[in-house]
């Protein structure tokens, strides 16, 4: 008499056995033991509890949904994120620097730079101007200047839009608004010394603004506020580069 094969026993574990197989199992303790083990194994498989899904799965699903896979999914969350990103971009722009700011202020062609802040569509403007503006006693300020001036070009806060969407968009929004107010306060302190004419500094600051707003536009495409910042910075950069080119050419010739 031969042992039953392991695959035969695996079949019998939850299925019918032939007459011959049953006869063998009544006589062969070794095969009967092996069959019992396979039956236990099969029962254990059916009873396996589901393992807990790792938190990373939800984070990935949430991020994918927020990125717009279903067009309308997580709409509210995206609205919060949009406001936070706009505010963060505003901070980046206002922290972008007086050299750039001077360009925004002086260049009449850059009126679109002010549009986002004055545009009633702008949630950033609402957030940013909801708080009392600091006094701006600087005597050089004129009536033609925009209602909000730009501080010095020292810090460009790119991280605000390069980080993943915040866990609490409302808190991120409040933080961005606070940083905006800080930037304004810094401007009032440093305004007098900020009127740099150095085109290199201004270009560096503009590059930072372009980088920041581009990243923000990746998150919230077609946003008029961010697009306004971006286009304005582009125009100013082109103007500076043009000036530099002309100046250089004049020096050469």
């Amino acid at each position, binding site marked *: *008499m*031969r*042992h*039953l*094969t*392991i*695959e*035969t*026993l*695996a*079949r019998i*574990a939850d299925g019918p056995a032939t007459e011959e197989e049953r006869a*063998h199992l009544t*006589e*062969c*303790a*070794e*095969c009967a033991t*092996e069959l*019992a*083990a*396979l039956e*236990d*194994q*099969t*029962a*254990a*498989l*059916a009873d*396996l*509890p*589901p*393992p*807990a*899904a*790792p938190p*990373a*799965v*939800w984070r*990935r*699903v949430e991020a*994918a*949904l927020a990125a717009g*896979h*279903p067009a*309308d*999914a*997580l*709409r*509210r*969350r995206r609205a919060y994120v949009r406001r936070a990103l706009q505010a963060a971009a505003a901070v980046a722009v206002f922290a972008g620097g007086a050299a750039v700011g001077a360009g925004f202020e002086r260049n009449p062609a850059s009126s679109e730079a002010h549009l986002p802040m004055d545009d009633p569509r702008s949630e950033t403007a609402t957030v940013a101007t909801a708080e009392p503006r600091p006094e701006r006693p600087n005597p050089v300020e004129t009536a033609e200047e925009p209602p909000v001036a730009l501080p010095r070009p020292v810090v460009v806060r790119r991280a605000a839009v390069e980080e993943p969407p915040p866990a609490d968009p409302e808190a991120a929004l409040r933080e961005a608004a606070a940083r905006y107010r800080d930037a304004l306060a810094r401007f009032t302190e440093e305004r007098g010394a900020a009127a740099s004419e150095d085109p290199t500094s201004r270009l560096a600051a503009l590059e930072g603004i372009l980088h920041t707003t581009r990243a923000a536009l990746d998150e919230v495409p077609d946003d008029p506020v961010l697009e306004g910042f971006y286009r304005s910075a582009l125009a100013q950069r082109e103007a500076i580069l043009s000036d530099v080119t002309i100046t250089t050419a004049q020096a050469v010739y």
Partner: protein
Amino acid sequence: MDASTLDPPEPIEAAARGEPWAIRAVYDRHADRVWAVVRRIAGDDATAEDWAQEAWIKVFHALPSFRGEARISTWIHRIAVNVALDGRRRLSVRPIGDAEPLPDEGLAHPIDPGKMVDRIALERAIDRLPDGMREVLVLHDVEGYTHAEIGTSLGVAPGTSRSQLFKARAKLRAILAPAPRPAERRKEERCAT
């Protein structure tokens, strides 16, 4: 039945409208079962995370078209299984039914399959099955699909699914109890008694 023991109704319609709280509620209720099936078919965490994400995105995409003709748990589970099987097909270089090597070593701490108390060891043993066998074993013995359903999903005859299952059970047994005897049993031998 005590009404307090009933689960609250699932916010399917709200989730279909894209309400974040409802999406999270549906996810929370079914996340473990989706993870279980994709993880066991995948055989590793990284692949399973990719498939789980893909499955859930498909679920939430398709949720507006869910008509309630099946239970939502069955519907979600089916999507997860399909994503996992599609993913396996994309990765697989060896179709089901082809000869697959038997792992040549047992677990470091083999468990007593007669008791089967060590579920972690069992999960690890499943991971070590060849891909095609793991699919059939998970779908049949763990998830309870029939051979006809598995055959349809995998594009094979039910008989192929059945024979693959028996091989998978045998190999799982060999992994869990790597004593010489199961290997010897791969060929019929003279019974000592």
